[in-house]
């Protein structure tokens, strides 16, 4: 790591990737709050990420925005930057930086599984891989997401009187859940908490099919019997959820594979659906890239570094601060 450092700073071009504080030049991998911060001078990102930043932080959240298309290379001085889809959420990318023949790939957050609400992941060969490890423990093996969605639909059949409140992160997870429901031919209107509205509308603008959805507007307690209502987990934990009569609390997150964790959060119906790579995806991808060095930005770094050692790969934990697990709300 001579030309990049542990803060994901690319020194030859004075540029940071996903910086946690305002900087002069920033490359943003995707729009989640722990990666995209307002206040940078120049931002390089995909069109979708730029739009999401503007929706969340306002039109002027950076001085200049520069868009870079997927699989197109931008040359800045002696450094070549290419975006490859990361499959995490709409607009999410991996950032490949090439300098003097060395290829370093920054995964951002990613998943290799197919997802109809964003571009699918593309693997990239590199010398050095800078990876996330949110679910970097072998206990995390995400099940098939269609089967998880079917659990929700089965519960609706079983309890047609009860509103199903599903805790989802507002960006990415909410739209993915709606998309997955539509794939299972769930045609009814889906209700959403106000905090989800702008981002859902934006996904629709980007031609992602979400069907009919409507902001909740509670007047009568009985109104939402047998309906699906999506809301941020924080809303489900607070007074907002008291408006619903006898709801089933669901949560869609990779953490839900841990029963005790679901129980602790009083989740009755855990849906193990994650926008992050699980242990197998993480380790398989490390192998596939052919990387000799692996730097782990955030998550369960220790286990991935240990696995690298077992596989004769140099592993190092960067433990970037300020990266929270956005599914862990």
């Amino acid at each position: 790591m001579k030309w990049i450092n542990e803060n994901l700073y690319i020194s030859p071009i004075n540029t940071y990737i996903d910086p946690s504080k305002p900087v002069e030049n920033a490359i943003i991998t995707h729009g989640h709050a722990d990666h995209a911060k307002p206040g940078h001078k120049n931002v390089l990102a995909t069109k979708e990420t730029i739009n999401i930043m503007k929706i969340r932080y306002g039109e002027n959240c950076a001085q200049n925005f520069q868009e870079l298309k997927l699989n197109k290379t931008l040359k800045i001085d002696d450094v070549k930057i290419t975006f490859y889809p990361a499959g995490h959420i709409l607009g999410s990318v991996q950032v490949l930086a090439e300098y003097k023949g060395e290829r370093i790939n920054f995964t951002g957050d990613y998943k290799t599984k197919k997802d109809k609400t964003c571009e699918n992941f593309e693997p990239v060969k590199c010398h050095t891989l800078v990876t996330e490890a949110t679910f970097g423990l072998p206990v995390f093996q995400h099940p098939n997401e269609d089967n998880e969605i079917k659990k929700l639909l089965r519960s609706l059949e079983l309890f047609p009187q009860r509103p199903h409140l599903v805790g989802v992160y507002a960006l990415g997870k909410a739209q993915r859940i709606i998309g997955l429901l539509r794939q299972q031919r769930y045609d009814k209107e889906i209700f959403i908490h106000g905090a989800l509205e702008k981002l859902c509308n934006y996904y629709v603008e980007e031609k992602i099919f979400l069907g009919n959805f409507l902001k909740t507007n509670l007047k009568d307690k009985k109104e939402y019997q047998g309906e699906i209502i999506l809301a941020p987990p924080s809303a489900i934990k607070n007074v907002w959820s008291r408006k619903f009569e006898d709801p089933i609390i669901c949560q869609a997150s990779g953490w839900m594979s841990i029963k005790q964790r679901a129980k602790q959060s009083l989740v009755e119906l855990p849906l193990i659906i994650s926008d992050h790579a699980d242990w197998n995806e993480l380790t398989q991808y490390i192998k596939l890239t052919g990387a000799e060095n692996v730097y782990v930005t955030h998550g369960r770094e220790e286990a991935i570094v240990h696995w690298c050692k077992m596989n004769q790969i140099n592993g190092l934990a960067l433990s970037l601060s300020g990266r929270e697990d956005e599914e862990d709300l």
Partner: protein
Amino acid sequence: MRSFSELINKLLLTTSRNRKVDVLCDYFKNTPDPDRGFTLAIITNSLEIKNIPISKIKEIVRETVDEELFALSYDYVGDLAETISLIWPNKENGNLPQISKMIGILKNINKNELTRKIHSFLSIANETERWALIKLISGGLRIGVSSRLAKTALAKFGEKKLDDIEKIWHGINPPYENLFKWLCNSGPIPEIDLKNTFNPMMLANPLEDKDFKNLNCNDFVAEWKWDGIRVQIIINDSNIKIFSRTGDDISLSFPEIKILEKNMVILDGELLVGRNYIPMNFNSLQQRLNRKKVSLKHIDDFPAFVKLYDILYINNDDLREKKWEERRNLLENWYYKNKNEFFDLSKIINFNSWKNLTAIRKNEIIDEQHEGLMIKRKSSPYISGRPKGHWYKWKKDPKTVDAILMYAMRGHGKRSSYYSDFTFGIWDGNQLSPIGKAYFGFNDNELKILDKFVRNNTIKKFGPVREVEKTFVIEVAFDSVNSSTRHKSGVALRFPRIKRLREDKPTSEVIQLCEFKLDFL
């Protein structure tokens, strides 16, 4: 194993009691014998598989999964059964045996094939089945289902009285095929062996001020309510069995209690420790509880005896339908004939008016020994459970202390969006020391005030727990205080509840821990 594992998963995640009952009813309806009976035995803790040590399971996992990765995972997940179920990497095709067969296999598994069998089970199982299997082997499901709840579900499923199920419960055995026959109306109520079967006890209701005007004092007798543990004693051919209130056989913990008596008799009383029938405090009694092996020194330091309250059977005659007065006569006859150092008769307190009894309660309660008074209707039969109108407990007035709210956790069921579990503390120097937790005592309106305070004054979050600004004073009522080595403050409150909100009080007026100990310990 599939339906068993799905059942316990559902029970774990369901927070409402009524819903758990429904989940169990469904299971009993849709599962054949003997599977449903074995499942019932497992969730009521009536069946244990003891021959497979959990260390053996860990060993099998360690051979399959990298040790360091397992350690990191276990550290993160925090629950052994969950860690193993999630981390197990091997998959094989097939189906696990159903629960009844599985129990048979696990009980009779021989050492040579243990590793191979367990390995294969873990590989065939899906993740929830693996979790259930390891819970089954390690004992103690910890899914928040009491045996009372399971019986409530049985009663609902069979449309029978809960009391009738309680009466036979301790005399029937897994897989309970007779029980299910009766519940499904295809057989008679199971017969039980009286000499070896615990009979659910009769319990008292708390006495409220408004009750007095409806109760004629001539219809009642009073006894002391002793601060020990309620027991039922079955004597038969000089054999003695002691059962706790929940029906656990605790005879082995009290081997010194003996009697020479040929005839069968079932007695109800309070087990205490002390000399010459003078009880020591509850703390001393606790030294004797939950011990599988009892040393002579323990027996010497804390000798046990029983204050007799009632008699249920004599010579196989069921006395429970008789009036209390008649039973008392029979009890006294038995007592004078069989008197020994281990049995004392509960004294009847004479009184001629409620006013008179109020004075007795006020003046004669000895703090170390009495919990208050018992008031029993002279004509009361002995009915299992907590029937209304027969027996009342009139506890001594609770003690109270002003304490400061420190932490709060969200409740369960219909309280799940409210912060309703509160930890409170008192001063230890200029620091606060937590002295207890309370989750009731307040009314709905007070709960809303507390909930709002917690939400607006959180200073830190630890998982589901919130630490709050230390500004809110609450008045906590409790029955007594014991010294405790398990709690940092060194004290443990019995039965603490929030009596009043004292937002008006400054925190500086809250008592110091050392003073508190002087006052109450």
